[in-house]
Structure formats: C-alpha cells, structure tokens
C-alpha cells in the first residue's frame, strides 16, 4: 500500500519518485570540489522543506469489506493522556506529561501503539512525575480516601483497592492488592508514617505499567480474542476524551454493559456530548494538519508585531472551535469541514483578523466571522503554521494539500538540485520565481503537484490574514491547476475553489477517514490493513461523510470489540 521512495546513491544518483508524475532521473556525478556558490538574493521560498518522510499514508478505495480485527496490543498513555488521567485521579493539573520526551511520529501521528514505548529517559521522567505527585497528595489522606479517611491499615487497604481500580481502570488482582498492602506495611514497619506508606503506594500506582499501559488484549473466545468491558471502556474514553473512563463509563464496565455495539454506541454518543468529547476531532485535526506545531512556529516580530503569544494561543483554540462547530454544531460532514465559510474569532483574534474575516458575531468567547474564508485549510491557524517566519510558503502549503488532504506522498527533492532558486530576481511575482521549478525537469515532476496547490492560498499571509499583495508588492495570483488529481487536471481560481474540489473528492474523503482511523486505532498501515479498516471505512467515502457517524462507525467496528491472535 505504501509507496516507498528510495534514494540510490553511488557514483550517480537515480531518483525514483513514483508518486510524482514523470520519472525523474539525474545522472550528475557527485561533485568532487567545492565550487563557490552564487550568492542568494533574497527571500526566496524554500522548496525543500518536507515533512518527515514516511509520514503519509497513501489511500486507495477500501477493497476488503471483511470485518477483521487488528492485533492484541498494549497502548502506552501519551503525555497528554498521563496529565489528564492524573487530573481525573487526583484533581491536580500536572504538566509533567507535556514535558515527556516526544513520542515517535508514525504516518503523521504521535500515538502509534507500537512506537509508544518506555525508554530509559521516559522511565525517569515518569518516575519523577509520580514521585512528586505522590509526595504532595499523600499529605492529605482524607482527600485521597474520603470514604475511609482514618490513618489505619484498614483504610490504606481500602484506598489501594478503590484508588487502584481507577488508576488501573480495572479492579486490582488479589496478587496486586497483596503486593501493595505489603509495601505499605513494610514502610510502616521501617518506621514510616501512614502518609509515608501511602506515598509509597501512590508513587508506585502513578507509574505502574497498570496505569501507563492500557490493555487491548482480550481473552480467547473462538477464533478471536474478546476485549473485556474494562478494556473497551478505556478504549472509548481515551479515544473520545483523551483520559480515563468517567464514573458512568466505569459503572457500565463494572456491570458488563459494554459487550455489544449498541451499548458502546450509546456510551460513545453520551461522551461526545461532554466538553472533552466534543474536542475529539480537533485533537485529531491538530495532528492531522500539524497545527500542533503552531506554538513553536517562529514568526517575524517586526513584520507581525500584533502576533503575540496571546494571539498565538487563541489561534489554536479558534482552530479547535472551528472543527468542533462544524462537527457538533451542525452535525457536519467532511465536505462541510473542507468548505464551511467561516472562522472562529475571540477578542484576541478580532484585533488581528477582523479586517480579514469581518467582526465575529459575538463579543464573548469564540464566534463566527464569515468573510473571505472557506474551510479548514484556510483557517488562520493552518495558514500560519504552514508558512515561513516572514513570508508565505506555497511549497509547504501545497505539500499539506497533497499529503494530508489527498494522501499523495511527495518525495523530497533529489540530491544535487539547487534548491534555493538563487538566480531568480526577488522582485518578480512569486509565480514567476517558482517557474524555475517546473522548468527544471529534475524538479518538475513533484513541483507541478506542489506549487499550484500552494499558490491557491497566496491570498493568506504568513500569519493567515487576507492579503492582495505579496511581500514584494506584486499582486497575488491564486489561480492554478491541480494536476493529477484522480487522474484529472482540475483548474482552480483560489483557495475557495480548491476547498470545494477537496470537499467533493472521494479521494480526499477516503484519505481523511484513513488518517482518522490511524489516529483512532493507534495502528500504522502494517498493522491496520485494508480488512481491519474495512468496516470502519467502507461507507464513509461513498456516504454523506458525516463526521460524528464516522466516529460511531469506528467505535462499533469489530476491531473495537475483538482482536486477532498473532
């Protein structure tokens, strides 16, 4: 399924880019001397700034409609999930998880079950988090154990049983319970106080594999393994709320009312009505379109003095609000997500963006501004993320369109290509400067995919405001041709028309569903093959593309209830 791109280097380079039309070959030998380079002449956009390779799944119509479940796995909590779980357990807003060492991104998402491991560095980070949380929380036992607040061994036992069940999202086994109470007693016997004993127990529970991993193993039942109610409860809650099960979901697991798709669907619809549940798609979309990089995307302070930290923060929140509004405010579809003609502004954003998009409908919180903006790709958060510090980058934006929207991987430029366009006069309009890309056959194959798709967004500057002139004063020109889209070349006049094309494209809708399921299952292409995904995806590209129903389809699929043996 995935196209692999290899660079074969030796005395000569052979460049194979199977997803870029036209095979590109270069026979230029390795340069043996370092010739001086002609000086660069200005702010040319950098066309060679790929997202990490191997991050983009390809998409083909689902060919297997068998409802086959995926492998039995353990899924380590992400850093955010650790912080959220700690909050639900202790009521403490931990920041430790946010500072855990970065998780590996696989096919564009940092929640891949196979890649989420605990290495030496992370083990120590978790240990420090758990130790300091336990030291603090153990000081007030009555808050930890309100039902049994006295500082006795009996209440320690009660705490281990009840808190342990929530921390592990399942009842402790008798062995586990005995292990923890023995540790409490040993600490007391060594001279420690009740609080010291609780500190030991809590310090371990907060970093135990029982908390750190969520199990999706199941038990043998015929040819497959049936996930138990607790496993399903965690599967649901971490997907939909990014945290542990709430009380109602726990109760459903406890009374074994999560065994059927109908029971799961009812819980899912309930959770999707909660504030955290309504954010499920914005959490996904932040990773999908890399808006999670916005906090650290450098911007030129002299050029954009109004783009301060408050605006930056609001921009990400406004993006979330847009996604939530489309999906839940209007029971929206994929097409709505691509084309909804508004953005969400709060007071901070109004100062910077009202000139572009109009005044928001309300002065409180986030509300709609409805001028000159179409769909998720034109949201200022997306435009600002996919731009350089001081200027736009059609190549970045084009790459996002091809890879994230249409699942068409674009390989990085081949070696020995001068990637700076340094012979081009910076006073020329951008389109003319980029013309060098398609004039050079080594570049043309990929850049005909990238450049026009990105130029369509030239009406948005490097922080996502509307504009009519480029940085050098040339009038913007947003027209172009989307080459090789479903074997067609489609002309578009601007970002709005491009959004319209994407919204109506079965390929884009299928690509979206494919990436959603990558995120939802935590499984890459090698684990979640066409048959695992068959039931989740089979109707979506052909159906009306309702976003909430895609989520329901995912959580009621075979994979959500059962697993295959190896």
């Amino acid at each position, binding site marked *: 399924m995935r196209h692999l791109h290899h*660079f074969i280097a030796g005395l000569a380079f052979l460049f194979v880019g199977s997803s870029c039309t036209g095979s590109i070959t270069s026979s230029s030998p390795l340069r043996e001397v370092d010739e001086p380079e002609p000086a660069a002449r200005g702010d040319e956009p950098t066309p060679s700034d790929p997202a990490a390779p191997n991050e983009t799944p390809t998409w083909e119509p689902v060919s297997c409609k068998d409802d086959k479940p995926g492998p039995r796995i353990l899924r380590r909590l992400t850093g955010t999930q650790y912080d959220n779980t700690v909050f639900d357990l202790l009521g403490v807003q931990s920041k430790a998880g946010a500072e855990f060492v970065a998780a590996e991104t696989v096919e564009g998402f940092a929640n891949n079950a196979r890649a989420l491991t605990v290495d030496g560095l992370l083990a120590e980070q978790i240990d420090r988090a758990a130790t300091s949380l336990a030291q603090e929380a153990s000081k007030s036992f009555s808050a930890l154990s309100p039902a049994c607040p006295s500082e006795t061994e009996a209440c320690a036992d009660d705490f281990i049983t009840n808190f342990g069940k929530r921390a592990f999202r399942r009842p402790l086994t008798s062995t586990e319970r005995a292990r923890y109470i023995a540790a409490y007693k040993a600490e007391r016997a060594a001279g420690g106080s009740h609080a010291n004993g609780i500190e030991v127990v809590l310090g371990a529970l907060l970093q135990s594999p029982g908390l750190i991993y969520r199990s999706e193993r199941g038990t043998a039942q015929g040819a497959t393994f049936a996930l138990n109610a607790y496993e399903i409860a965690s599967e649901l809650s971490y997907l939909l709320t990014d945290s542990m099960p709430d009380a109602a979901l726990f109760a459903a697991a406890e009374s074994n009312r999560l065994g059927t798709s109908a029971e799961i669907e009812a819980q899912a619809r309930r959770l999707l009505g909660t504030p955290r549940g309504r954010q499920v798609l914005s959490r996904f979309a932040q990773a999908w379109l890399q808006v999670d990089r916005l906090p650290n995307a450098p911007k030129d302070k002299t050029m954009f003095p109004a783009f301060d930290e408050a605006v930056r923060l609001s921009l990400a929140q406004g993006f979330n609000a847009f996604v939530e509004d489309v999906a839940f405010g209007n029971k929206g579809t994929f097409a709505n997500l691509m084309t909804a003609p508004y953005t969400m502004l709060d007071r901070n954003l109004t100062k910077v963006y009202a000139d572009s998009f109009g005044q928001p409908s309300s002065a409180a919180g986030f509300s709609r501004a409805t001028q000159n903006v179409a769909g998720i790709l034109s949201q200022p958060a997306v435009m600002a993320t996919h731009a350089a510090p001081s200027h736009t980058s059609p190549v970045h934006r084009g790459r996002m369109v091809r890879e994230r929207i249409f699942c068409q991987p674009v390989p990085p430029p081949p070696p020995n290509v001068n990637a700076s366009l340094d012979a081009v006069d910076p006073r020329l309009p951008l389109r003319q400067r980029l013309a060098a890309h398609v004039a050079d056959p080594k570049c043309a194959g990929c850049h005909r995919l990238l450049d026009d798709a990105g130029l369509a967004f030239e009406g948005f500057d490097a922080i996502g405001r509307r504009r009519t002139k480029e940085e050098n004063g040339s009038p913007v020109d947003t027209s172009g041709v989307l080459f090789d889209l479903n074997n067609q070349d489609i002309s578009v006049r601007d970002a709005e028309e491009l959004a319209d094309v994407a919204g109506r494209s079965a390929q884009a809708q299928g690509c979206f569903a494919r990436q959603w399921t990558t995120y939802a299952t935590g499984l890459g292409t090698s684990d979640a093959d066409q048959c695992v995904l068959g039931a989740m995806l089979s109707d979506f590209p052909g159906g009306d593309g309702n976003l909430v129903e895609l989520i329901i389809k995912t959580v009621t699929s075979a994979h959500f209830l059962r697993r295959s043996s190896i």
Partner: protein
Amino acid sequence: MPHNRRSFLHHLGTSFLAPLAGPWLLRRSAYAATRPTRLVVFFTPNGTKHDAYWPTGSGAAFDFSPGSILEPLKDIKSQVLIMKGIHIKTQTNHEPGQATMLTGVKGTDGGRTNGQSIDQWVSARIGAADPVPNLALGALTDVWGANTQTRMLYSAGHKMVNPDQNPSNTYQRLFAGRTGQPSAQVDAALRRRRSVLDLIKDDLAQLKTEVAALDKQEQSKLLAHTEALFAMEKRMTGAGTPVSCTGPSPVAAMDVNAHDNFPAVARAQMDMMVLALSCGLTHVASMQMAHTVGPLTMTWLGQKQAHHELSHQKNADFVTAERWYAGQFAYLCKSLAALPDPAGEGSVLDNTLVVWSKELGDGNLHDGVNVPWVLAGASKFLNTGRYLDFGGEPHNKLLTSIANIMGADTPSYGSEAFGTGGLNGLLR
C-alpha cells in the same frame, strides 16, 4: 549544600587520582596509555556554505579567514583536526543524511536505519559499567516529535534514541540527590524510592507473563521498559557512582521550546555534560543542536528566518548562524580543556575524542560532498592542529577510525559496501 565550582574541582583533584578501571584500558596496542577514554558527539544541522567554511592553507600551516565559519575555533586551533574530503556516500539529503551520519548505514522504509550510531556502539563497549552508559542531550529536539528529522542516534534495529532536551531533567537525572551527606532523612527517602521501584518492577514482571502470548513487538516493548527500570534502579542506588559528582546548582526551569532560550538550554546541557564526563558518571555523550530542517530561528542574533531557510539562501545571516554554532563547539572543547582529568594525565579534553558532525555537505544542494567534520581533543593520540584533505573518502572510514581510536579493533563500520578500513593520517 551545593558545592561551588572551585570546591568541586578541588574535590575531584584530590579524590580521583586512581585511574578508573574498565575494559577500555586493556589495550593490545602500544597506544593504550594515550588513547582517549571518552567520546563526545556534537551535532549541528543543515550542512554548510563551503566558501565561508574551510580554512586557508593546509596541514599544520593553516588559518581561519576573518569572518569565516570556523574562525571561532581559533583559540583551540591546536586541539582540532579539520577534515575536508570526507563524503557521505551511503545516502544523502536532510533526513537520510542524519540517519546515516553516525551509523554508516543506508536507511530503509523512508529513512530510518538499521545501523547503530557510533556513540551507542562505543558506549556498549566502554560505558556499560557507568551510572549513565550513554548521555544523549539536545536542545530544541522535540517540538516536531520523534522522527527521522529529529533523531540522529540509533541503538539498533531501526530504534531511534531520544536525547533529553530539558536541562532540568538532565540535572535531576545526573546530579539531584547527590548531596554526599548521608542522613536518616535521605535514607528514609531512598528506602521509599526502592520500595516504589520494587512494586513497579513486580507489576511489570506480572504483565510480562500475562502478555507472553502477544506478538514480538509487544514483548520487546516490555523488555525495553524492564531494562529502563533496571537502569533507573542502578542510578538510584548509586551503584558505581563516584562520590564527587555533586554537580552544579539546580538548573532553573525555563521554556525549553522557546527559540530565545536556545543558547541558555544549550549552555546548561553542555555544562552538565562536561561535569558528568569529568567525574566519571559517563564516558560517552552527545549534544544535538536542534535537528535537520527544523524550526530553529536564531532570534537571539536578531535573525528572522529559520536556520534551515538560511541554509538555502546561504547569505550573511547563515554564516553568522554557523559561526554561532562554531562558537558553541569551541565552548564545549574549552570547557573540557579547563578541567584536569581526574582519571588520567592532562585535561579532560586531552583524553576525550570530540566529534563535530553534520548531516550534509552543501546545505542547499542536499549533497554529501565534503561534509564538514571536525575532531577535537585526544591530544596525545590524534593528529590535532591540522587541516587535512582526505580526498573523497567515505565517511564510513571515519566512523571506523573513531571506533578504533576508542579502542576497538574493527575492519569496518556500517555498510562495508561504502568502504572498509580507517583513514590514514588521523593519528600522531
């Protein structure tokens, strides 16, 4: 009570005269006494601008042009070996270069390599008994997640190694709790920490038996977790930890992802790395400055474009940025040179091989030609104070030489198809 730097050094000098025992001292070669006992890898991304980089002259008669990228090395000229004519031939471009740079192996599946980076290979041989067998540090390495753009170290089998980008973490890991002042309070805290660790080790052992029927990837996941806990236990109990490693005062918390803080993060990381190397906490370390491509913008220099963008424009700002990195390399070497080696003759730098690596030659062309490698230190062993042209040798030979300098006896490193044997002219 935190020790100040002076008393710390004094302490080192008086209590650490005996050489550290270790397998790396058992050399067959006559060079045994002068071999470096430590390896440091220093990385900066996005290739270089050749016409602003290379010194003038050659051999021992070379100089740095005013304003050139390497000019900040002039104070340590006698301690560096500048290497031209080393090509990365395995695979080129940003991510492939970063993957093969220290492994000498071509990547598969989009760039990750099946090889092992030289620091990991060396630490498995000379650092296994250390409290920290391999100290991987970085600055601004995490904001784009962990992937082939942001990682340069590989343990083995496509497994990338994460550097620690947070000086507070580094401090906690290396130095916190090393007060050297035993007390009942410390003993009780340690007792509880051990008790916690025993619980989670038992929990993990139980989970391992429960998932014995899961596939190999899940098994290896728990195996890695178990190894991590054992390493943590070893450090916690202080086994093999030199008492003098009391370290600097605690590092102030800061936003490690803010570009403005990059210099402070890098400085804090390097300072702690130098202390850890000097007091025997570790013998193999790496410092990764940002990563290939990457968002880092040197805002503290007044720059408005990311380093990677500048690498394509190759303008004066890029040279300024590259000079800043060269200054960091010089700072690291000078810091190592400022400390007497408690375990040998001369300074710590005299017995440390420092390797400045890059993933590309020309950053704009994304090629592997004349990748700028600089070696430093190991002064009794390495042919320092030279600017040498190796005439187009594959970087695999350099990696082979590094392995052998560090005491191995290996005919090749990485893919043999790209060259076997080491480089001539490296050693005194």
